[in-house]
């Protein structure tokens, strides 16, 4: 009678252990396939900021152009055999598992969504700026507006798709592509030309004179 009881208890313990192992296994498999992003938990160490250069500049910025571009780099598998072996290899990487279970023949893909800010205006330090009274007029000679700054910062960069392993130089090449696209948009929208009107308005606001003002670009 007592032996039966002991046997039943042992059976119960065995079953509980099996259930526990199954639960642990399910959690492990879930974590393996859905590792989640741990990047939000990153904390960087406090390191000093080094001032490398201080420069005196004189720039009149009159147009701020904010652009958002999508840049993409894709590589495809050459054949089905390569696709199968490539997808199997992706199973070994936590982050790549979701790309391994796919009918798509994309071998690698990196898609970035980048927001940039371009400033147009005139650089009065590099190029001469003169004010000359002539024939009852005030002649301001200023250089033609140009693109003075392009800001593409990590804060405004989103890695939208990252399938496969990507190196830093490849990401940088995409960022350069984004920069080129933004500059091209600025050219197409004729922003250098559009920077002239607010520049003239600004100079006229600053110059307090009764003489008519003539602005010449060179």
């Amino acid at each position: 009678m007592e032996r039966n009881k002991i046997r039943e208890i042992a059976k119960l313990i065995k079953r509980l252990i099996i259930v526990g192992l199954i639960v642990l296994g399910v959690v492990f498999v879930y974590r393996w396939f859905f590792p989640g992003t741990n990047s939000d938990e990153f904390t960087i160490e406090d390191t000093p900021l080094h001032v490398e250069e201080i420069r005196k500049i004189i720039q009149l910025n009159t147009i701020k152009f904010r652009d958002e571009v999508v840049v993409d780099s894709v590589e495809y598998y050459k054949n089905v055999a390569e696709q199968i072996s490539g997808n199997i290899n992706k199973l070994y990487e936590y982050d790549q598992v979701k790309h391994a279970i796919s009918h798509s023949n994309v071998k690698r893909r990196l898609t970035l969504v980048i927001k940039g800010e371009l400033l147009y205006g005139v650089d009065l330090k590099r190029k001469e700026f003169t004010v000359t009274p002539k024939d009852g007029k005030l002649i301001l000679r200023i250089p033609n507006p140009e693109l003075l700054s392009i800001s593409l910062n990590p804060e405004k960069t989103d890695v939208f798709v990252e399938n496969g392993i990507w190196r830093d130089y490849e990401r940088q090449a995409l960022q350069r592509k984004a920069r080129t696209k933004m500059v091209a948009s600025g050219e197409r929208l004729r922003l250098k030309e559009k920077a002239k009107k607010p520049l003239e308005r600004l100079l006229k606001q600053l110059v307090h004179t009764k003489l008519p003002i003539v602005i010449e670009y060179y």
Partner: protein
Amino acid sequence: MKYRFVYWLIGCAFVLSSCGTDDAPVKDEEIYEIRTIGMLSTSEYTVGKIIKLDDKGTWTNWKWGDRKILMSCKAKIRAGVDLNKVKDSDIKVNGKRIEIQLPPPEIISFEMNPDQIKTEMVEISGLRTNFSQQEKNTILRLGEKAIRKDMQQLEILNDAEKNAIVFLTDFYKALGFEEIIIHGTEQDKRNRQID
């Protein structure tokens, strides 16, 4: 029973295959904004920072092993004054004398050139995977945030105001004014917020 299992497997395969990446090409959509401004940029600082991250793994969070990364980056910060904020009442002209009240200096642009960002060192141990580009971007975002915070200790706004006063003094001298008085803004009235 046997068929039900086969159907279940086919169903699973179909569902999982639809989870994969999309191979559609990216469309060139244009989203932009053009804003007219009137900024006089007068000071430019180039700063450098080493971004250090020690991503220690623990058994409890299923990260078995450690990861370390060192990245170096540079940022170019420009500051100046917004001349559009100069109102008519801020400029007083009396013959050959001109008196101007300048608006507070502010940060005009912040550039972190991607070409000047370098991964100096990476160390991976245990079962950890290498840093993905997404993770590196997150780390760089933290670096950018740290630079923007540290920037507030720099003298850039004071330099920008001083340089703006020098430029405007020369500018009004060239226009024929003999007495030029330019007032800056008190430090406590400055906007410490960075764009």
